[in-house]
C-alpha cells in the first residue's frame, strides 16, 4: 500500500502545448482510483509519468512522501499492466512472471513461491509452461496481472487493460480485478476510456479532459453531482440531456426552454440567479406523467427497445431529449406527457459550463 501525491504536475512535449496542466491529486493508501476521459485527455500520460516512463515537465510526484520525479521506473516499487499485455513472446508464462524477481536477485525458492501464489490467485497454474502465443486474450490478461502481483509492489498501475477483450470477457475480468483489489488491498491506479469500468471499479474516479482534471469524486457522486457539463455528459449512458433556456422568478420560479415548450417548476430550489441557463436531466429521470401540472409534451421520433427498457428519442420544441423508461411503459403513437422530479434537475452556467449549486439558482 502506498499514498501517491501529484503536486502541480504539468507535462509538455518539446515546444508543443501542454498536455497535462497543473495536476493536483492525492491517492490514499489502498485506494482504487480510475482515470477516465476521452482519447487525448492525458490520462495515460498521467499514468506513465507516475510509472516513470515519461518525464515530468513541472511539479512533483510523491510516493509515500518520497519524490520520485528522477527515479528510474524499477526504483519506484510499482508494477504496470499494459493495454497489449506486453508479455515477452519468447518466454514461458513462468519466465514472464519470474523475470522481474530474477533481475532483482530474489532467491529461486522465493521466486517459485511467489509465481505459484500469483498463479493460484489468478487460476493460471496450468498455463505456466506455455508461451504467450498459445494463450487466449483473457489468459494473457491474467498472466499480465500475475506478472504485476509477483512483484508485491506498493502501487499497481493499469493502462486500459481490458480494451482488447470482447464484451463478455471484459465484464468477467472487470469483476476479477475488483476482487483482486479487495484481496490485495493495494493502491491501484487504473486508466480507461470506458465509463462503465470507471464507475464499477473505482473507489474514486478522476475525470479528465484536454489535460485538465474536471472532477475527482466517488462514482455515484460523479453521476448525481457532476461538476460541469462535460462530466455530466461523459458519465452515464445515454448521457445527460441538456436544454438551453432561461430561469424565471415571475410569476413563479420556473425554467423555460427557448420556445416555451418545456417548462419545469423550480420553486423548491433556492433561487439567486435569473436569465440564461442550461438545464440537465438524466434520461432515467424523465418519467411518463398523467397529470398536467409541471409536465411537458414530447413527440417520440424513435424508440429503441433494449429488452428491459425502452430508449425514447423525444422532440420537445427545438430540443432533442433521450428518455429511458421501463419496457412495459404505455407508449402510444402520439405525443407523450413527461415530467422530471425537481430533485433530479441540474443547472449549468452556459458560459463556464460549471454546475450551479442550489444556492446559485
Amino acid at each position, binding site marked *: 500500500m502506498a499514498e501517491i501525491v501529484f503536486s502541480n504536475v504539468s507535462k509538455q512535449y518539446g515546444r508543443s502545448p501542454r498536455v497535462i496542466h497543473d495536476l493536483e491529486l492525492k491517492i490514499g493508501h489502498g485506494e482504487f482510483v480510475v482515470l477516465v476521459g476521452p482519447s487525448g485527455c492525458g490520462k495515460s500520460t498521467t499514468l506513465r509519468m507516475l*510509472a*516513470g*516512463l515519461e518525464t515530468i515537465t513541472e511539479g512533483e510526484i510523491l510516493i509515500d512522501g518520497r519524490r520520485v520525479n528522477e527515479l*528510474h*521506473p*524499477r526504483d519506484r516499487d*510499482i*508494477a*504496470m499492466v*499494459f*493495454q*497489449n499485455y*506486453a508479455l*515477452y*513472446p*519468447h518466454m514461458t508464462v513462468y519466465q514472464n512472471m519470474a*523475470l*522481474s524477481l530474477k*533481475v*532483482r536477485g530474489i532467491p529461486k525458492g522465493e521466486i517459485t513461491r511467489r509465481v505459484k501464489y500469483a498463479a493460484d490467485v489468478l487460476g493460471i497454474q496450468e498455463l505456466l509452461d506455455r508461451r504467450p502465443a498459445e494463450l487466449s486474450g483473457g489468459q494473457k490478461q491474467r498472466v499480465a496481472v500475475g*506478472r504485476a502481483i509477483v*512483484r508485491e509492489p506498493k502501487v499497481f498501475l493499469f493502462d486500459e487493460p481490458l480494451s482488447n477483450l470482447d464484451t463478455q470477457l471484459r465484464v468477467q475480468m472487470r469483476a476479477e480485478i475488483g476482487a483482486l483489489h479487495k484481496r490485495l488491498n493495494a493502491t491501484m491506479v487504473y486508466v480507461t476510456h470506458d465509463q462503465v469500468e470507471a464507475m464499477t471499479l473505482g473507489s474514486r474516479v478522476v475525470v479528465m479532459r484536454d489535460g485538465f482534471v474536471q472532477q475527482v469524486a466517488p462514482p455515484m457522486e460523479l453521476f448525481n453531482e457532476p461538476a460541469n457539463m462535460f462530466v455530466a455528459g461523459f458519465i452515464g449512458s445515454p448521457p445527460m440531456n441538456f436544454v438551453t433556456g432561461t430561469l424565471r422568478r415571475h410569476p413563479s420560479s420556473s425554467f423555460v426552454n427557448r420556445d416555451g415548450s418545456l417548462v419545469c417548476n423550480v420553486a423548491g430550489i433556492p433561487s439567486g440567479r435569473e436569465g440564461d441557463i442550461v438545464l440537465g436531466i438524466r434520461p432515467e429521470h424523465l418519467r411518463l406523467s398523467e397529470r398536467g401540472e409541471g409536465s411537458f409534451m414530447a413527440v417520440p421520433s424513435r424508440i429503441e427497445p433494449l429488452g428491459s427498457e425502452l430508449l425514447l428519442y423525444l422532440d420537445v420544441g427545438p430540443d432533442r431529449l433521450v428518455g429511458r423508461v421501463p419496457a412495459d411503459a404505455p407508449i402510444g403513437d402520439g405525443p407523450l406527457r413527461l415530467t422530471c422530479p425537481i430533485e433530479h434537475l441540474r443547472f449549468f452556467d452556459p458560459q463556464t459550463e460549471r454546475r450551479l449549486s442550489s444556492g446559485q439558482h
Partner: protein
Amino acid sequence: MPLGRIVFFVAAALLAAAFVLPMLYAVLSSLKPIEEITKVPLQWLPENLDSLRPNNYTEPLARYKFGGYIANSIFVGGLVTLSSLIFCTMAGYSLSKFSYFGRDAFFMVVLMTLMIPLEVTFIPMLIIVRKLEMMNSYWGLIIPVMIAPFGVFWMRQFIMTIPNDYAEAARIDGLNEFQIFGRIIFPMCKPALGALGILTFMSNWNSLIWPLIVARNRDLWTIPVGLISFQSEYFKPLNFIFAMAVVSVLPTIFLFALVRRRLLEGIGMVGIKG
C-alpha cells in the same frame, strides 16, 4: 484451369528452370573429364559411366588446399554474420527506439551509404586497413565488413514494428538497457535476424574482390579467391572449377533450407523485399 493460372505456372516453371538448369549443368559437369566439358556442341550428360570423374572433387581438396579455403570462408563468413547480427540489431534498436540529437541525420547517412556501390569504398577501406596494419590477416577480412548499412536499415525497420510496451514493461520489471536489449529485444528479432543472417552469410560467402585485395597469403584465401586461382593465362581446369563451385554452393543451400521459413517470415515482417 483458367488461362491466368496456366500463364502463371508456365512463367513460374520458366523462372525455376532459369535458376535450376545452370546449377544442374554445373553438377553434371563437375563429374566429367575436362575434354567432355569443353566439347562443342554442348553436352549435358557424361558420355558413359566410366568417364565419370569423382576425383574432380578429391584432387583440388588434396592438391590445392581447397579444404582450407572452405574453412576460411566458414570462419570469416560466420564471424562477419555473427557480428553483423549483433551490431546491426544494436544500431537498429537505437535508431528506432531512442530519441537523441542527430539520430535522423545519422540514419540518412546510413541510407545514403546504401546507395554507394561497395567497390567505390574499397580504396578508402584499403588505405585504412593498411594504416591499421591489418593487411594479410583475418582482421583485415572481417573488421571492415562487420556491420553493413543494409543490416542497420533492415533491423531498424523490423524493430520499429515492435511495440514500445515491451521495453517499457522490462524497464518497470527492473531490467537495465543492456538487459532489455539482450533479453527482450534481441530474441524478439529472430525472424529478421534469420533473414539478415542468411543474406549476410551468403554475400560474404560469395565475396571476391575484398578478400582478393586483402588476403595475399594463400592460407587466408576464401572459396571465391581459391576458384579464381585455378585459372591461369594458359590453363583453365573447368572440371575442378565446376566441382568446387558445387562444393561452395552446398553450405548456402543447406543454410537456406534450414532457415527458409524464418527468412520468408523475416522478409514479410520487415515489410521490404530483399
